[in-house]
Structure formats: structure tokens, C-alpha cells
């Protein structure tokens, strides 16, 4: 049994999510090989070779894969993947985009967003926005899987010494092209991999007030998040959204400010180790999941917290 992990990488560096996916692959059992596919991704491949528990790294470095276009990636991965028992990627927007295409090309099902490995063919995954957990068994010869990275502890980034093998391939479907990208720039850690997250909700009243949270986030080295209500109200951009329809986070500390705790939000953050809620409504559902609740007006409590840190 051998498992092909598709690495997450950006600008030549390996993303932390890959360590969680390798961890999930190790839980399945068997040889773990990592494919780094992209353009100028050699340094990401070298980083992948050092990851604990990786037996081999394949690198497909070609302009055709430069913008991670699903049409091209899926042709390559379906081709290479035929020799493996499992093909695994993170359930980020890249994995969600190309991996179902791979599964269809191989005429097998995909098992999306797994949160636990029961055995080599049986997995747990959330359904109904996390309101139920299904245990699913696959009878396909190749299991194609996306992994909810927050559900698996990362393996060590160092300690391995896998061989790096070049895959000479340029699969270009020729029917799609990259036009432009608008990537939000931030000095703060990425939301899905941050150890502390500070999130604001509708209670923040406007986008300007989110600056109050930035002070706290900077002092704690935290990422900033928001509830869907805050995003829908136009306070902050949608890539900050934590919830079932946004990002799924599981930091060591999650601070929810002015967030009522709709089911959709809880589905995105209830895996956090410690949850703090600051809300003036003591009946707010967020307090039912919070380890520490502070019933207070956030416009008083937040500056006080900022000053005390």
C-alpha cells in the first residue's frame, strides 16, 4: 500500500497544511510519497523531502502547473495516481478544486474533508455543516481523499531525508488560463494555521471597529477572523470568514468578540482548544461552547484587554 500526498505550497515554500496531510496519510498506513506540482517549486520539494515519515518526493515543475489550474493538475495526478492505493490532499481551495476531477478521471468516489481515519478504507467526515459525523467505507481500488487539516496534528517538518525524483511531464488541457489574482497581504499568521485567532462579529458594528481587535491580535501574534454576519454586513473581506461556509479553524485559543454563535459559525471553530467569548448578551449561544465567557460591552472590554496584555 502506498499513499500519494499532494503538497500545498506557495511561492516556493511548503505550506504547513502539508504536515497535517502527511499525518493523516501516516494514520492510513503504508509508504507516504509526496508530489509537489507547480512552477519553480524546487525549494518546496526540498522542504518536503525533510518532512518526517516521507519516503519519496516527486516534483513536477512546469509552466503548465504554474497557477495550479485544476484542468492541468488533474491530468497529471490522475496519471501518476494510478499506481497508489490512496491519493490525499488538504481540503483547502486548491485540493477541493482539482481532486474531485482526479477522482472522476479515475472513475472512483472522493471522500471529502475527513476528520479521522478508522482504517485504510474507512473514514469519518462531517456532514450537514458539522451537525453530524458520518463513518464512510469505500470499496474503490484507489481512495481519493481530502483532509480537514485541523483534525490531524502535524508531523515534524524536519528529520526526514527522502529522495527527490523529477517527473518529466507537462499536461496542458489547453482550455483554461490564469488571468489575475488578488491576494490579501498581511503580516499576521494565516487564519487556518494560526495558534491564536481573534474574531469579530456583527457586534463590532462596523469595519472601522475591527481595528480594536487588530491591537489584540498583534500583541498575541494572532490571526484575525470574522463571523459570516460581519462579512455579509460588509465590515471585513470574506477571506476572514470563519464557519462552515468559510474557513475551519482549530487554534489553541479562539477569542470571539461580539459573535452570537450561530451554528454556521460554531461549525468552523468548535475544534479550538480554548474558546473565549466576549458578548453583552448573556443568553448568546456562543457561551454554551466557551471555556471562558465575559458578559460585557465589547467597546469597554476590548480596550481594557488590549491595555492589559
Amino acid at each position, binding site marked *: 500500500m502506498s499513499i500519494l500526498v499532494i503538497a500545498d505550497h506557495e511561492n516556493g515554500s511548503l505550506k504547513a497544511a502539508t504536515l497535517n496531510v502527511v499525518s493523516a496519510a501516516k494514520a492510513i498506513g503504508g509508504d507516504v510519497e509526496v508530489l509537489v506540482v507547480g512552477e519553480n517549486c524546487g525549494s518546496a520539494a526540498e522542504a518536503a523531502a525533510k518532512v518526517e515519515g516521507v519516503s519519496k518526493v516527486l516534483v513536477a515543475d512546469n509552466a503548465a502547473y504554474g497557477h495550479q489550474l485544476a484542468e492541468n493538475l488533474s491530468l497529471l495526478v490522475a496519471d501518476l495516481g494510478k499506481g497508489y492505493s490512496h491519493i490525499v490532499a488538504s481540503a483547502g481551495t486548491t485540493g477541493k478544486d482539482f481532486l474531485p476531477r482526479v477522482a472522476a478521471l479515475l472513475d472512483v468516489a472522493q471522500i*471529502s474533508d475527513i476528520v479521522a481515519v478508522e482504517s485504510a478504507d474507512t473514514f469519518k467526515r462531517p456532514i450537514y455543516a458539522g451537525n453530524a459525523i458520518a463513518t464512510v467505507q469505500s470499496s474503490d481500488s484507489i481512495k481519493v481523499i481530502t483532509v480537514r487539516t485541523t483534525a490531524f496534528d502535524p508531523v515534524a517538518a524536519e528529520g526526514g531525508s527522502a529522495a527527490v525524483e523529477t517527473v518529466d511531464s507537462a499536461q496542458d488541457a489547453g482550455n483554461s488560463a490564469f*488571468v489575475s489574482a488578488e491576494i490579501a497581504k498581511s503580516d499576521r499568521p494565516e487564519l487556518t494555521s494560526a495558534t491564536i485567532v481573534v474574531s469579530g462579529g456583527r457586534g463590532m458594528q462596523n469595519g472601522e471597529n475591527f481595528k480594536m481587535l487588530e491591537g489584540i491580535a498583534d500583541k498575541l501574534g494572532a490571526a484575525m477572523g470574522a463571523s459570516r454576519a460581519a462579512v455579509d454586513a460588509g465590515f471585513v473581506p470574506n477571506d476572514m470568514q470563519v464557519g462552515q461556509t468559510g474557513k475551519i479553524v482549530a487554534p489553541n485559543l479562539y477569542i470571539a468578540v461580539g459573535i452570537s454563535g450561530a451554528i454556521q459559525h460554531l461549525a468552523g471553530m468548535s475544534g479550538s482548544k480554548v*474558546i473565549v467569548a466576549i458578548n453583552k448578551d448573556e443568553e448568546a449561544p456562543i457561551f454554551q461552547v466557551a471555556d471562558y465567557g465575559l458578559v460585557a460591552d465589547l467597546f469597554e472590554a476590548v480596550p481594557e484587554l488590549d491595555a492589559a496584555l
Partner: protein
Amino acid sequence: MKVLVAVKRVIDYNVKVRVKPDNTGVDLTNVKMAMNPFCEIAVEEAVRLKEKGVVSEIVVVSIGPKVAQEQVRTSLALGADRGILIETDEEVQALDVAKLLKAVVEKEQPNLVILGKQSIDSDNNQTGQMLAALTGMPQGTFASEVAVDGDKVNVTREIDGGLVTVALNMPAVVTTDLRLNEPRYASLPNIMKAKKKPLEMTSPADLSVELKPSLTTLKVEEPATRQAGIKVADVAELIDKLKNEAKVI
């Protein structure tokens, strides 16, 4: 230009989901059903393209039991021209859904296929991508903007960390994200008119697709619930707890 929109009948998003006591699934008896929210956005986008004069015909297709006609009729009331229901009482898994839709695509020859990015019951986020793979079409998933430009469609996609725009040769598949548009409500006159629009009934057998589910759900459970913790009196106590009890700052 012709658009095909696929819609799914699911549990209404306002309904509290209850797991059956025998852990075989989610209890759907006497539960309100509705069109999947991402599918409503797909229908809305097609209707807007028609209102702009870009699209001339909207065909909507659904797969499911006979009662899923309701969701096809709703789409017709929202502005689709013609409906198709692939009737089956079986569970249809994503790959089989994609195969059924492929058969419809071959028959209808649409320039654009618009689907929701995922359904709020199975949360798979697969069907659009699988359909694109099986038909060899390019895909614009998690779309927040769709602009048809000659024989290409530019799709702005919501990705981790921002947005990316891709140009796809048509025919192409688009899957909708939340911010693509805000769906309208069907007006009463349009609901009445929709009753007269054509709705074709077909079946997997008619389309020569054999359903071959390869995933078996062994059990469905409630998620682990968190216990409510304590209320702290003030900010000072909160910081003390985080430092000395939880040790997270």
C-alpha cells in the same frame, strides 16, 4: 447561448438537524425540504445572464424522488425556461450524479453549466468538478463573479487568501460561492406561470447510466459536544485564567 443549471432538493437550511437514534442517518421525516442555497445562487446567476441578454435559454435539471419536482418548479418560477427531473428513489452519490449530468449535457449541449459548489446535506463539494472532468470541460469553482466574453467565460474564484480570475473556453462548468449574487424570491404570478412551463421526467435507465455507489455509510453520529465553561467577572480575571489556568497566552 444555452445554460444548464443543476439543482438539489435538501433539508431546509433553517431546520435543526437531528441524528436518528439508531445512528443510520439524519432524520428527514416531516422535515421541511428546500432548494440547496448554493443551487439558488446558480439559478439566480443564470437568470441574470438571461436578463443581460447573454443567455437565451435556461434549462434546469434535478435528480431525486418525484417530489423534487417542487425544486425544479421553483427554478422555473425564478426564471428558468424548461425543467428536467431524473427521477430515482435511490441514493445517488456524487460520481453518479456527475455521470447523469454528463448524459444531460450530451443531449442539451449547453455552453455553460452552473451548479452550487456544494450541497448543505452531504457537504461533498465534488459534483461540478467531476462533471467537468467527465465532459472534458474547464471549470471555475467557488465563483464570486462570472463574465461571459465571446466564446470565453471569465470566472473570479474565491480561494484561500483572496481571489483568482481564470479565463475558460466554453463550454465550461461554473460552481457558485455565496457572494456571487443574492437570489430573488419568486413572485406569485411567476409561480403560477411556472406551472405551465415544460418539465420533462426521465430516469437513470432512460439516460443509460447505471448507479454504482462505492461508498457505504456505516454510521452517523452526533458530533462531540463542548461543555460550557465558566463566566469570568472582568478582563483581569479573564487574563489570569488564560495565563495561569489554560496557559494559552
